[in-house]
């Protein structure tokens, strides 16, 4: 297993570096230059513009800047400087990543629990009205753009019925409250964005689980269990679901990077100070160092998600374990 992990991580390095290089090329070929964005529309003397370009290194050739960023990263572990936020990129990431993980983690939990629950119920009531209603709801949720879902949920649950806050991670002055109140406040702020991010992807998961359950329910061992007089609940939740869960484990692992990258829109809509908003703002400001670092982090998450899914499959399915042992992985 350790060999598998090492092999995957070593194989991921060129992938991650390649992703960063591609993003750099995309940013460099975009029209305009960051000095224009920094200085805005109002007139400034040419010498001020030259000074800005020199101090922030915008006057250096792109290849030189990328080489310098790469060397700093590999030799000193330095992710660079954000000229749009005037902070080290490492500091910005360390502030934004926990916020994103909190949101994506809650969304992943919702995505998994809701997806499995709805998928199982849908399969249990196959072709009856609850199944059709759940299928329709799943399809609608799946088809809705996240930003629209976010805006509608703010409109309904923050303004029409003011149940949840429309933005931010905490209330003003929450840092002075007791731990319990702070936790409650954090949960209150987390609910709406996590619902929006998790519910839409749970709809896809529910469809996936339903298909797996139907396949599972049609198999011989289920018929045999039913013939032995096993209760329908036990049959559904313990036998059919366990068998249908293997591909779901894979899907959950792959969902992590999708949720993290998908949080970009949700974070912008809910003013959630995470990686998504950081990257979005950095792209608009052509802040290359931040975009490169967040791209690499997202690429790492894809690799980690894949790896976690593979390891979970290994742990859950003896057939895969055996095959892996035979192939020497």
């Amino acid at each position, binding site marked *: 297993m350790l060999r598998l992990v090492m092999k995957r991580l070593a194989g991921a390095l060129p992938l991650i570096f390649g992703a960063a290089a591609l993003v750099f090329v995309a940013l460099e070929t975009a029209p305009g230059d960051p000095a224009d964005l920094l200085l805005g529309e109002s007139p400034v003397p040419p010498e001020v513009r030259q000074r800005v370009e020199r101090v922030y290194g915008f006057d250096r050739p792109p290849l030189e800047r990328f080489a310098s960023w790469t060397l700093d990263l590999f030799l000193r572990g330095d992710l660079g400087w954000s000229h749009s936020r005037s902070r080290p990129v490492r500091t910005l990431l360390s502030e934004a990543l926990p916020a994103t993980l909190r949101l994506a983690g809650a969304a992943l939990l919702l995505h998994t629990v809701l997806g499995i629950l709805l998928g199982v119920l849908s399969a249990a009531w196959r072709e009856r009205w609850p199944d059709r209603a759940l299928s329709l709801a799943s399809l609608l949720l799946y088809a809705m753009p996240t930003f629209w879902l976010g805006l509608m949920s703010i409109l309904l649950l923050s303004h029409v019925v003011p149940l949840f806050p429309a*933005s931010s991670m905490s209330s003003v002055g929450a840092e002075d409250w007791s731990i319990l109140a702070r936790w409650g406040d954090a949960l209150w702020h987390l609910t709406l964005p996590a619902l929006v991010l998790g519910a839409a992807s749970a709809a896809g998961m529910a469809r996936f689980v339903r298909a797996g359950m139907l396949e599972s329910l049609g198999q011989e061992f289920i018929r045999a269990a039913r013939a032995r007089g096993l209760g329908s609940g036990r049959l559904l939740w313990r036998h059919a679901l366990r068998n249908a869960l293997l591909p779901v484990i894979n899907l959950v692992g792959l969902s992590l990077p999708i949720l993290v990258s998908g949080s970009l829109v949700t974070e912008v809509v809910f003013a959630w100070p995470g990686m998504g908003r950081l990257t979005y703002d950095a792209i608009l400001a052509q802040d290359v160092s931040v975009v490169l670092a967040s791209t690499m982090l997202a690429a790492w998450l894809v690799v980690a998600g894949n790896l976690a899914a593979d390891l979970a499959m290994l742990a859950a399915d003896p057939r895969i374990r055996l095959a892996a042992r035979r192939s020497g992985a």
Partner: protein
Amino acid sequence: MRSPLARRCAGLTALFVLVLVLIVGCADPPPAAPGDEPDSLPARGGTAVLGSITDVDSWNEYLSRQSFAHFLLRRLYLRLATESGDGFDRPDRYEPMLAESWERSADGRSITFRLRQATWSDGQPIGAGDVVFTWQAQTSEHVPWTNAASKQRIRDVVALDDRTVRFDFDGEYPYQLADAVEGGILPRHVFGRVPFEDWATHDWSQEPVGSGPFLLERHQPGHEIVLRRNPRYFDETGPLLDRVVVRIVPDVVNLLAQLKAGDIDLLMGVPPRDAHRLSSADPATVAVVSFDTPSFEYLGWNCARPPFDDPLLRRAMTLAIDRRALVEDLAYDYADVGVVPVPSRWWGAAEGLEPWPYDPEQARRILRERGFATVGADGRSQGDGPVLELTLLTNAGNQLRQDSLVKIQEQLSRIGVKAHVRSLEQRALIQQASRGDFDVYLGGWSFVGQVPLDTLFGSDHVPPAGSNVVRYVNAQVDADLARLRQVDDWQEMKPLLDEIQRRIHEDQPYTLLFERDGLVAHGPRLRGVTIDVPADPLARLERFWIARG
């Protein structure tokens, strides 16, 4: 099978609802409308919550490029003196801040400031050495301060003793005091620890030593800024608020909803349409305050590209645009029709110049004289020349500009001009405009300090050498600008400024659309909101207070 699950679900739901009810129930009751309670005396204490769509880009004034950051930084680092906001009929007068007094030398080439007895927030005295250090930073080639030009005519800054400092200029001129006091004074014992070469890559949010009424307590990028009262602020009456919290939400609709719900107390940069809605729909709950801000929206004509190299044709375009209607329909009267690109309330603004009227008939006549076909008021074609076609550019993502262009397109079509509207991403627009590859574009200016007529209209300031993007060339204007640089007295400057503006008005390199007001909205909890300094809505932040109850 379903019963236990259902029971558990019901239990969890009940618990969740209970938590929600507790949280919602513990929230403050909605504040009373301003009219519900009699005006009371300003009270000390409390936290004001401000909403902003932009974040602070740097906590060093000399590295920051955002106006919002400057609104806050000016509350952290005081200047020697500050504008009184009365520069309507003569250059601004100044009120003492860190300097308690100043005097000009007999030859007019020096100003000597006497600093007040005050300390930094860490207890260190504020001295002449800090002023000298700040000037060194402002003029350092390693510090990319966008307003560095204001220090060009200062030859030296000399500390005469601990509390006396002299500024020496290369000559006498009207803006000496404005140039000397531009920029907050920095604590040398804190900022001096970092060499100027490293300023651009230093995290200044970790240096919370200041001289102003507030100090930076915390900044979580993209989320929240917290300022707290400076206990060592020289003015013992001090700020009335204990804390100012800025909530950063990148969506103005969201912020407006929070303002109406009482979650935030003050919102800056309110769009005109929303200001109109707020003030007409719910004036008892939300108050809208407009203030002077020298910012313009304009159409810039490419004076180097035929047929727009003809001043009379450019004037015809201005005559064809009903700018009053734009102000009423799009800016909801929170703006004035622009005349020339200088603030109309600036002392240097030319008197007697009126905006060109909306006169489509005269516009048609000029077009026909230049060989273009037009369309009459009755919709019939006039003349047999070609139709004038042009492309109107602006940046994507600015709704006011997009709406303006659609209206302008329709108005131009009434005289037979075929306008194509195109929105470009901001960077692409700047690049295309700098290259001179455009007919006309809609842009905007905000002036900080003096109006840079030189760099906007001087023929030697065509990009990349300057900001004369429209490539305006007028030998007489060039000569007047050169003479203006030689004049020392503001009363002698005035006729020259008038003449330059008159020529620009005649030539119309820019069609000024609006001169916009700044707009803020505040809820009933926040009192004492006075905005009397142009372009600085938080200038009197220390006098803002929170109503009790």
